[in-house]
């Protein structure tokens, strides 16, 4: 049963990913991205990471893709790109080659490496690697929040700061330049 769900979700994930790369229209690429994100959310569900699946749908499928579509519509750049055009000679060939090499590297590391997982950690260090062991029969929201607010509370606060800085930075970056003269009122700069 799990295998069937995995294969369907995996096909959606990879199909969405290929759709992002191959579609000529940015709007279609964004919609393929939604499909891929939903497939990843399904993969999270069958691995019992329910909270992450929920957040994946809300943040990625909702907020981030809506932000992409909003920018596409705002700028009116939803014109189709001619994929046959290749201004930089050899870029496409080199890109595909590098992608295939990275794929070969990761798969090689996966299948040719020594004992991995729990067995590998025990073999190397003599003890389990788990720093926050998963408790069975407890909702994963409870466990995740406990881990977040005890071991990682400093990182959690740092992300709050990061989000604030990102918001302020975005406002500063896209601020209308014409309004600058109204705010900055120093002698000598107004004449220019």
């Amino acid at each position, binding site marked *: 049963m799990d*295998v069937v769900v995995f294969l369907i979700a995996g096909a959606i994930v990879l199909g969405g990913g290929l759709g992002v790369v191959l579609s000529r229209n940015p709007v279609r690429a964004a919609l393929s991205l939604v499909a891929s994100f939903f497939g990843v959310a399904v993969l999270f569900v069958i691995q019992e990471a329910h909270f992450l699946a929920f957040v994946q749908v809300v943040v990625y499928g909702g907020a981030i893709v809506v932000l992409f579509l909003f920018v596409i519509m705002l700028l009116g750049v939803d014109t189709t790109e001619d994929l046959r055009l290749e201004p930089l000679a050899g870029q496409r060939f080199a890109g595909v080659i590098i992608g295939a090499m990275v794929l070969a590297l990761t798969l090689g590391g996966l299948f040719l490496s020594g004992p991995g997982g729990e067995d590998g950690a025990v073999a190397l260090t003599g003890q389990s690697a788990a720093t926050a062991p998963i408790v069975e029969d407890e909702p994963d929201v409870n466990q995740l929040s406990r881990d977040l607010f005890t071991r990682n509370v400093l990182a959690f606060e740092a992300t709050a700061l990061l989000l604030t800085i990102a918001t302020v930075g975005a406002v500063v970056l896209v601020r209308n330049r014409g309004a600058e003269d109204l705010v900055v009122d120093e002698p000598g700069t107004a004449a220019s």
Partner: protein
Amino acid sequence: MELTETWYLVLSALLFAIGLTGLLVRRNPLVMFMCVELMLNAVNVSFVAFSGALDDLAGQTAVFFVLVVAAAEVVVGLAIVVAVLRRSPSMTADDLASLRG
């Protein structure tokens, strides 16, 4: 057939390679951003797979932080894209060399 973490890791590697290839091949800055999101998602899949395989919640916590940082990154990145593209809507990533100081 049993579903082991290897399946997830293979899928993750494939998705990462697709995203990387797209990032290198595509020229529209918005689509390049989407490819970066694909790569982040591929790593998230492998994080959760390792979390399940090692019975360790730290993997899921890492995914949570990746989500937050990805959101912040998209906000700032799209702001830069808007600031640049508002001037010339048909700009590709090559023209961003004008950002050089």
